[in-house]
């Protein structure tokens, strides 16, 4: 494993010419990658997608949206954001485009963005016409780069692409086989990785069952598919528990979760986001998902997670995070502002006077000291293990 060798630093340098070469190769095909940029670079596509998938469209929300559209023309493109890139790229692409493939997978609301990326990248290998391993690797790298640049705000997309590259290409079995066998092996590995990632949610749900006991009250923030899976599994195994859902402004994802839980006959209570401290007394544990798990063991998640973790820490309640391992990212934010900004528009319902600033960040960073445990498909981890896993994965 040369990546783990002593001359790691030297290796990095050796790698760089490779990258510059891909860059040069990229140049010739720039038009294609440029044809597919995120339609709204100022606004986080990741959070928009989530809102589209999980948000609850109520009558007043519609009214607000209407008002917003008239006020801000950017929102108009936003509404079409999901369809637009797909349409434009299908026009320009010759035979196959990762972004197309990615978007096709992404439309399934149950499929995480990272898994969609993994599936799309596997498709790249399958349709590739490369004849050497190097070519294939370059092609893959290009595809994953264009995926990453499609939405720079999504941590799990970036992490998923990186992990896929690591997992698929880092196999010693490739060296002794002819190209076609190696290629099929890569596809096999890619599919296996996709399968693991798909099953991750299930694994996490099983692992976390031990932590939900009869008669407990759980606070949930935002809509996380993993957390929903955990609660669903608990409800199906006849556990008696109560859930408090925060409302999750601005896209009201909490309402959606309450809706789902009510279908399962779980007693649910809705809170406005500012009532967390008020309700913390009666809560036994806090359950949150994560958009990304960073190297320090902290998480980046929907706005409001940090304050909930702070309140829970202050009242000595455990904070559990459910996150799939493809969300582990090699980032290390030192404080809230130390992240790539992910912005999205917020509607306050009333027109905002000129000169008043609006904080439009969609996420915050929760440092590891406020988290109790992370439930991942690698097992139940303390925050400090995340870095351990990351070092083993990436170095």
């Amino acid at each position, binding site marked *: 494993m040369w990546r*783990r*060798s*002593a*001359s*790691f*630093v*030297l290796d*990095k340098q050796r790698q760089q010419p490779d990258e510059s070469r891909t860059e040069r190769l990229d140049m010739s095909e720039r038009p294609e990658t440029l044809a597919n940029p995120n339609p709204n670079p100022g606004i986080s596509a990741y959070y928009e997608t989530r809102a589209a998938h999980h948000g609850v469209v109520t009558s007043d929300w519609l009214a607000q949206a209407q008002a917003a559209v008239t006020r801000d023309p950017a929102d108009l493109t936003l509404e079409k954001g999901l369809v637009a890139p797909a349409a434009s790229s299908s026009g320009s692409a010759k035979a196959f485009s990762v972004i197309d493939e990615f978007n096709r997978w992404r439309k399934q609301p149950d499929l995480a963005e990272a898994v969609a990326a993994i599936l799309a990248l596997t498709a790249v290998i399958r349709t590739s016409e490369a004849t050497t391993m190097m070519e294939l690797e370059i092609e893959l790298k290009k595809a994953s780069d264009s995926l990453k640049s499609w939405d720079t705000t999504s941590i799990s997309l970036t992490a998923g692409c990186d992990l896929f590259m690591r997992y698929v290409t880092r196999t010693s079995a490739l060296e002794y086989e002819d190209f076609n066998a190696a290629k099929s092996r890569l596809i096999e590995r890619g599919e296996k990785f996709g399968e693991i990632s798909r099953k991750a949610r299930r694994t996490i749900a099983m692992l976390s069952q031990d932590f939900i006991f009869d008669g407990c009250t759980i606070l949930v923030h935002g809509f996380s598919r993993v957390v929903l899976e955990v609660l669903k599994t608990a409800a199906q195994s006849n556990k008696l528990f109560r859930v408090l859902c925060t409302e999750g402004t601005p896209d009201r994802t909490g309402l959606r979760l309450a809706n789902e839980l009510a279908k399962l006959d779980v007693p649910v209570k809705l809170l406005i986001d500012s009532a967390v401290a008020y309700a913390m007394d009666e809560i036994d544990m806090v359950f949150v998902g994560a958009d990304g798990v960073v*190297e*320090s*063991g902290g998480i980046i998640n929907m706005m409001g997670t940090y304050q909930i973790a702070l309140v829970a820490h202050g009242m000595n309640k455990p904070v559990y995070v459910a996150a799939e391992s493809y969300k582990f990212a*090699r980032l*290390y934010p*030192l*404080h809230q502002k*130390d992240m790539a900004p992910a912005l999205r528009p917020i509607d306050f319902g009333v027109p905002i006077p000129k000169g008043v600033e609006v904080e439009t960040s969609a996420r915050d960073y929760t440092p*590891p000291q406020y988290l109790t445990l992370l439930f991942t498909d690698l097992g139940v981890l303390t925050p*400090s293990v995340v*870095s*351990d896993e990351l*070092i*083993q994965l*990436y*170095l």
Partner: protein
Amino acid sequence: MDSRRASRMVIDPKPKVRQVGFFTPGAPPERTKSSPAESLSSPPTSDMSPAGNSLSPVMIPPPRHASDNLSSSLGLNSSRVLPVPVPMSPIRRPSTGDNLNLPLGSYNPSESLLGTSLSPSSGFDDEGLSEDTSTSGWFVRGNPGKVASSFPSGGFDTTAMKSRNIPVVSNLTTVSVVKMPPGLSEKGGTLVEVQHEQVRDSKLKEKTSKAERRALQEAQRSAKAASRAEGSKTAATSGGVTAANAKPAKAKASQKKEGSSVASSDRKGPEKDRKKDVPHPRMQFDDKQRVEKAKRRAVVKQTEARNRVELFRHLPQYEHGTQLPDLESRFFQLEPMHPSVYKVGLQYLSGDTSGSNARCIAMLQAFKEAIKDYTTPPEKALGRDLTAKISSYVSFLIECRPLSISMGYAIRFLKNRIAKLPLTFSETEAKATLCSDIDRFINEKIILADKAIVKHAVTKIRDGDVLLIYGSSCVIEMILLHAHELGRQFRVVVVDSRPKLEGKALLRRLVSKGLCCTYTHINALSYIMHEVTLVFLGASSVLCNGTVYSRVGTACVAMVAHAFRLPVLICCEAYKFHERVQLDSICSNELGDPDVIAKVPGREDVDHLENWANNENLQLLNLMYDVTPSDYVSMIITDYGMIPPTSVPVIVREYRREHLWM
């Protein structure tokens, strides 16, 4: 100081308890004296090996039992025979001193049980001891038979013999003999042990019956077996105990010198095993005998400073300025020292080369020169001879200034490379390989590592930041300059402290490059911290629990920054990570010249302490390093990326070992 006293207080009651428990008629079955026949027939190992194995696997040094038992026996005897209060006995000083950092209590009841049921003692029982007093003396001395089991030196059997053969009065004499300051060091200790063994043998031949001899042999064998079984569990034997062990022995040795050499050759097996398993104990400079011994070997003649702070007596401290002229005058007498090594040593001594990276590079370059000029002496193997040479260089450098952790790693690397040289290599080939290895080490571990660190660290510097740095670290200087080259708009607060004032030189370099700087002393830290957004600190080493071992004052800066909720970034190359764990700055540190803190150059008006250095009531402490707990560290930037302090063991586990074997 308090802990010292407390420990002595705690240790002392134990023997008394033990004595009471032992003498109670209705003692538990294990404690009753086994009948002679039983003791002879039953294999003694069965009693013994559990005794050894039941010790918890974590660092329970047998020395503790030894000194414990020794003190107990001494205490017992002296309190019985002489009305001398135990703590007064001068011999106790070093042994308790060594016990200082050991956990107290908890093991002793079981120890006493095991100790009394031991076979050496029961082996002797068939002699039939009539006198009550002698029995007591015997049993207490028999207790250390357990020591013999876990500790390769058969040590106390002789004492036992003695006390048995010569009645009560002899107890008294042994005690008084023990009080003699023996002046032994570790090596001397083993030597004496050997002699001591011989003494025992000769004694046996003179006085014991056949059955007795057999019993004794059996005991020895089992003792050896137990010591072998214990293997790694036999933790570091601190010098104090070796000395304590040897003390009575030396007394005997002076009486009798003849004896067979069989026993000594017997001894060598376990002795070697122990040396392999156990890390070499660090020199404790409050251990008088060993310091004496070391002084005799020393190349650099240095006078020890007299008034040392109690808590730091175990660290070397010398009168500054006494070494240099001496060393210079003896240049031509120091035959084996290579001039380049000598030069580096002098630079360390005078403080011209400081900073762990610089010191490490200087040392490696000197070694490279030495290797280039090296020729294998006839009838010697390059691998062995060169290693010995390097070791002698290293001990010279240590005398000039204690090694930094980075240097320790580099030395280990070099020795490893020498050991791994293929035998087929010719001398020139081997030398070329080693030189290129050294170059590669410097290049990869230090130069490229620094570049990687700079690359990572620069991503954390944003426009408008105010960075606080403390002291002078070359990698941090590189970070700042690189960030400045990239056009980041930031300000630097350079915090400095007396007596070294290293920050001034750094400040000069930074300002000349056009950076906007503020200079202040550490006294103003809490004031200046308000305007700071990011704290960058260098490190001499990062220990396995995330503790940062760095220039004194770093902990203070980190703590204040933490109190202000500012991120504290530590920049440290991965080769300086160390698998040791350290909880305080006391047990391992370096003492600087105390005069420097007493005097302020150029300020006669504040030199109140002139010529006071030798005042007994004045103890000056000039610590060089301190440790910063990992709680105050937000991130460690290393060549492998940015990691939380909790991940240091991961790096050590994943990379350090591999690199040694690379």
